């Protein structure tokens, strides 16, 4: 790392410490001196020093260890309320004045001292000749003073609130301090001796370079954040802005966005509108009439079975079916009515026509449009939710979108049907190659299946279409030819979304929805 990027990476605390050396780069400074000149808290200073040592900008010149004596909590307590030795001695003197006999138990209970404290104090006083132990476990003052008690008193006063170096005390006092210092196994002592390491620090060669460069950079204060205040008074000019490590990974955010599948459907929707299609909407609940009868599916048709369509529990039937459509459709089923057809030749059940089902095909929406005086020429589409009585698996959903619609016009015929499908192939699937295969749908004749060569998927079925049978259009009041078309887009959507299971189109996994890019 070169010097300037090294300096850029420095923390403001480090800069402060280095700057202290700027006046005299070869100076050797004690920690205390550094604390004074930087004005840093001890914890901040020691952090900065450790960082600089780790970066080899700073080096330790000398290290001296000083023993410092200070009062422990017990010591401070003794300072306030006297030590056990003082208290035992004073109790013995009081007893001598009044002539009372004083037992060890008396002292213990009167002074509220621990037995160990009392016996320790008595031992020391007896040794110094300040006490006598007489018969019956009584103690008696000799009237002599105790050096220890006096020495402790003196030390407590000297050390109260101000720790001092151990070496500053004369030998005798040092002995007392060491005797009464906290040691392992004996925490109840008035004094503590700590080893304090005093370092003399100096700059390394790199450190000198850094300090010199820092001083050349001037004394501009480094800030981390541009603030309104800095902008307001223009003081940003005198600041330096701490540089960021921009190679770090950015924090995650979850943006608001459309669902990838909906995005795909939106694109289809936009495409259809651009080709001149008007959107149709319908209801989720339909009558069998609009869902099937109007589409000339006979009431005995296998796809109308209880195993293919969901029936509504309650109410079971619609209140009515609009006339004249009911009668006209019924007639077309029975004998063709006026459509030029033989019809299906069975007794059409008008009750059954009112039976409510969940819409099973988008063509039901088109049937409504046919009966609602559509524009001629006209193009319509819907993206309708449909329901099938299917076991749900990777390729079957019970609840899915169907993209389908109609085209009405005097110029509609088999060839314009193929032309429209060509357009879909090109615009919706970006496919240049198409194949038209004969197909069967109950409501169209002729019927076509559109196969295209998709740029990614190869040959695939894109949709089905045909000319609505006159048995469908005439009873609903439409006299021009009508194309009915439907596109199967789920496979394309799944490829665009990179999924292999149709259930994932409606996934409940928020992580997956958030992370799917979708196609655009």
């Amino acid at each position, binding site marked *: 790392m070169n010097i300037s990027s090294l300096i850029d990476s420095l923390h403001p605390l480090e800069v402060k410490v280095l700057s202290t050396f700027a006046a005299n780069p070869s100076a050797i400074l004690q920690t205390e001196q550094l604390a004074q000149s930087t004005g840093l808290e001890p914890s901040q200073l020691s952090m900065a020093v450790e960082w600089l040592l780790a970066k080899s900008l700073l080096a330790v010149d000398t290290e001296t260890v000083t023993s410092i004596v200070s009062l422990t909590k017990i010591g401070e307590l003794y300072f306030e309320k006297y030590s056990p030795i003082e208290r035992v001695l004073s109790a013995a003197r009081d007893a001598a004045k009044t002539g009372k006999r004083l037992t060890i138990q008396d002292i213990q209970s009167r002074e509220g001292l621990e037995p160990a404290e009392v016996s320790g104090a008595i031992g020391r006083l007896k040794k110094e000749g300040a006490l006598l132990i007489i018969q019956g476990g009584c103690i008696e003052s000799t009237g002599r003073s105790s050096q220890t008690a006096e020495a402790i008193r003196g030390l407590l006063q000297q050390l109260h609130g101000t720790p001092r170096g151990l070496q500053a005390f004369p030998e005798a006092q040092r002995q007392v301090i060491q005797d009464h210092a906290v040691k392992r196994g004996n925490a109840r002592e008035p004094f503590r001796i700590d080893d304090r390491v005093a370092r003399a620090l100096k700059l390394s060669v790199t450190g000198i370079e850094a300090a010199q460069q820092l001083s050349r950079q001037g004394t501009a204060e480094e800030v981390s954040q541009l603030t309104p205040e800095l902008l307001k008074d223009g003081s940003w000019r005198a600041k330096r802005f701490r540089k960021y490590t921009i190679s770090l990974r950015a924090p995650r955010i979850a943006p*608001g966005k459309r669902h990838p599948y909906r995005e795909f459907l939106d694109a289809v929707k936009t495409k259809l509108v651009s080709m001149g299609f008007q959107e149709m909407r319908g209801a989720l*609940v339909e009558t069998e009439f609009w869902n099937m009868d109007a589409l000339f599916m006979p009431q005995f048709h296998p796809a109308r079975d209880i195993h293919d369509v969901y029936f509504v529990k309650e109410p079971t039937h*619609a209140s009515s079916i609009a006339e004249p459509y009911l009668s006209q459709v019924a007639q077309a089923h029975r004998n063709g009515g006026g459509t030029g057809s033989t019809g*299906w030749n069975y007794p059409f059940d008008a009750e059954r026509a009112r039976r409510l089902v969940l819409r099973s095909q988008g063509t039901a929406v088109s049937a409504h449009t046919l009966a609602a005086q559509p524009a001629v*020429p006209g193009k319509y589409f819907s993206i309708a939710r449909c329901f099938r009585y299917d076991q749900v698996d990777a390729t079957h959903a*019970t609840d899915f979108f169907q993209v389908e619609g109609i085209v009405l016009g005097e110029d509609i015929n088999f*060839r314009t049907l193929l032309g429209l499908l060509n357009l879909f192939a090109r615009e919706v699937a970006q496919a240049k190659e198409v194949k038209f*295969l004969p197909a069967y749908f109950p409501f169209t004749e002729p019927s076509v299946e559109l196969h295209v060569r998709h740029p990614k998927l190869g040959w695939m079925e894109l949709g089905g279409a045909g000319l609505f049978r006159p048995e469908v259009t005439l009873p609903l009041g439409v006299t021009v030819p009508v194309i009915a078309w439907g596109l199967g887009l789920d496979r394309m959507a799944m490829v665009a979304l990179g999924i292999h299971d149709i259930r994932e189109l409606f996934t409940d996994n928020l992580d997956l929805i958030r992370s799917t890019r979708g196609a655009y």
Partner: protein
Amino acid sequence: MPTITIFKQDLEGLLAAPGEAPQPITMEQLEESLMLVKGELKEQNSDTGELRIELQDSNRPDLWCCEGIARQIRVKRRGALAKYDFLTTRPKSPKQLNVAPGLEKVRPYVAACTATGYRVTQEGLAQLIQTQEKLAEMFGRKRRTVSIGLYRLAAIEFPVTYDLVKPDEVTFTPLGMDTVMTLGEMLLVHPKGLEFGGILAGHDHLPVLRDAKRQVLSFPPIINSREIGEVRVGDDALFIEVTGSDLSMVVLTLNIFAANLADRDAVIEPIEIRYPYKTALGMAIMTPQDLGKSRKLPVSTIEQALGQSLGAQEVAKALTAYGYEVMTKSKNVTVRLPFYRQDLMHAMDVVEDVAISRGYGDFLPVMPSQFTVGGLSRIEEVSDRARTLMVGMGFQEIISNILGSPKDLRDAMRLEGTEWGQLVEVDNVMSQNFSALRQWMLPSLLRVEAASNRAFYPHRIFEAGEVARHDLTQPLGSRTVTVLGGMIAHVDAHFSEAHSCLDTLFYYVSQTYSLEPIQHPSFLAGRVGSIVSEGKQIGVIGELHPEVLERWQISVPAVAFEVDLTELAERS
């Protein structure tokens, strides 16, 4: 749409004229030819020659077999259908099948013939059985309208009687069993009796076919006799009968079998059916019989529908090469379907056959030229606007199933017995998970929330979509409404957060609203409001009730709102 199994070598044999060598066909040619029959090759095994083919046209049962597919291809290759003599050359004293009185109320119609001179091969037998099953199942509506029986002719003495007997009056050994049983017992214990017995429900007399020696052929439409009604490889004389409830379908089915066996070089001998009651075809009917009717149509009708001038000759050529009988006269064609088809309902059916016979590739696509203006419905525009705003406010869109479970939609929302808990439910439930339409959006949002506690927070999700509101004042008993639902979930989710979003939304759709305190079991009391706009309640907002969160096993607070977009769309 049946899917059938055929064998390539069998097909190749059938593509040749009687007595000729088999006509090899490449897979490419086959796929091309399958367009003639709306067939799609699903699977193939090049070792065994086995082909799985799906036939699309549910009105063309004649194509649901190897013979039918081969016939359609053969006709196209030769340009016309070969003659089937048995339709015109009738025996002087035909074999007879007598129908007993009373059957008009049970299973009125029967058709039958014999086929001799074709020695049944392994493949031929498999095709016979497959055709019998597919026709009875799909065309015959699970034997209700049509069922078929095949027998060894040698064991039968004519005349045969189609009789009506009491359930315990007749006994025989049915196929698949080794003991003699009464008809009543078969209905109770035989697998076919259990499967198809419902067709005869309510009748105290049951149909039975017996020959002159009173031996039972079968108990239609349930089961054949084990002795006579089991055709084996090597048999070269067959008796075929079809019974059912629809005369023309019964005759058509027999016609198909007669054509199929004739195509395998069998000699078909018609049988005279004698009814004690009137039928649409009289009281004595020779079967097989061509029921086709001629139909005259202007060539211009066909040309108009196809968008192509062809001329009467080209039309006639195409239809003849598809099996039709055609006569042309100036600007009209008179057409008649071959005897194995009955699917001509409208002139448009002829149009499609012309197109298929010529090949769809023969028609040059033309763009519809008339100008139309595209556009979205008002509700979609409003919905898109709301979605854009929600995305702008940092919400992730989701999409859910509309079909859900009452447990999620109502019970887990604490809405049992409330007006909010009324559902459009499914009658024929397959799975409780898909048995009711969602009546509001919040359960859809909770579904995602419940599954996503590992996705980093905060969660802001929305869906705009359809729901069904149960409403008996409506003609359909319900209304489909498009709503917007939004939900915020994280440790500090708060009412005001959702309120701000709602407020912003209303501002940008240029509508005003106010919140009125309500009681709603899905939300915490005192932290829920009805969204009222122009005096109408058009939504709800609130902090979700802890018990709701508990039931969905959601461990952070959630606040949500829902707005009726249909109501907003209808205003502007």
